[in-house]
């Protein structure tokens, strides 16, 4: 099975249920029960691997989102206030020099 194409919460649950019935059935031989257990372990590993892989893709997408939003925030800034503060400081400094 290709986990990335076919896996889903629902698939995992349904497949596990079928395997679980083999494990608990009185009609299953010990070998069948063991095979069902091993198949479940594979299924479980595939499932969690799939969850983590999908999540990692989204983690990268969230990082991209953060960078984009930071750019949006930065674009709202303006320098007019800073420029006036700077001009005031310049005049104050010049006043201090002239009054010295």
């Amino acid at each position, binding site marked *: 099975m290709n986990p990335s194409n076919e896996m889903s*919460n629902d698939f*995992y*649950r349904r497949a*596990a*249920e079928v*395997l*679980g*019935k083999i*494990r*608990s*059935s*009185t009609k*299953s031989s010990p070998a069948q*029960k063991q095979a069902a*257990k091993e198949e*479940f372990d594979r299924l*479980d590993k595939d*499932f*969690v691997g799939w*969850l983590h892989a*999908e*999540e*990692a893709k*989204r*983690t*990268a*997408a*969230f*990082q991209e*989102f*953060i960078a*984009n*939003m*930071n750019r*949006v*925030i930065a*674009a*709202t800034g*303006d320098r*007019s*206030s800073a420029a*006036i*503060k700077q*001009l*005031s*400081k310049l*005049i*104050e400094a*010049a*006043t201090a020099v*002239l*009054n010295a």
Partner: protein
Amino acid sequence: MHRLILFTFALLAPLLAACTAIPTQEFAAYRASFAEARKAGEQIMLDAYAVDDALTAQTTPRKVGEWSFKKIEASFRVVDRAAVRLAAWDVVDRYNATLASLASGERAEALGQDFDGLAAAIEKFPFDELASGVASSLGPVGPAVQAIKFAATAAKREGDRRRFVEAVRAARPFMRQAINLLKADADTFYGYHTRVHVRTRQQLRDHLGTLWLDADATYSAAADPSAAPETDPARVEFERFQSLGKALDGEQLAQVVGDLNRPAGVAPMSGLLLAEARRTNDRFQALAASFAAADIRLAAYEDVLTPYAVLLLKLEESVNALADAVENAQPTAPALDELTPIAVAIRKAVAKYEEVRR
């Protein structure tokens, strides 16, 4: 001075044409939706990762003897999924705060204070020491700066409203993307809990298999081969457990009830067999209760996720409503209370200027 007044009017021109409208109601609704979704989202995410981490630790045995610096470095470089998601919530919070500051006019007020500082600095500047008569030839600098202040702050207020609109417009596709990521995350969080549920059921099914083997061994040993199967208490009891087991297999757990009364015609159970039957019955019931408890735990988690999903949908609606409102907002005439102080300041500056000239 004429240039100053012209400059003041130039600053005011866009404001006098029309004011950009900020959809305050939609913005408030969006912020409220965001706050609720964030609060729930962070909690649900941290819980899901705790569940996943615990299960991963449990199912991944530690390998001894395979240590290497490269492995440590690789795990060190792994991006922390929770930290990234917390940072994503945080960046939206900062974006909201930015929008709020643009909408409230607080930036314009801050600019006004900066102008007050500039006016104060100019007033103290020793023009006459620099060159005799400069101050009188410049005219009243303070009122002129005040006039520019009023005009600039009004223009800034309008500029900030436009920045608000531009920011909402620019963020819309990113916000949509983030909400889709959050929706997909919710499915993954459910996946982690599903895994716990499924693995619990697998263990319970193994117990059920063991219980069958035990019951089979017990009743086979106690069976009376000379008696008819329908009158032999051991075989009748085994039949009963078999039907209970089938019920459990078919998930009709309510059928798993202890009933040790013998049907008519069946010989009473011996003390030993009765004790064994009670013990087996108790084990079945405990197993049935464990199956039910696993389902109850998952159902409880579903009850947590469902309102969160609704919050995400509400957030999505409010993001769209805000963006639509921004797109459809009609420019409004500038409010009189905004313009009056500007007009008064300009008039005062002109009057002072005329007075000095005379």
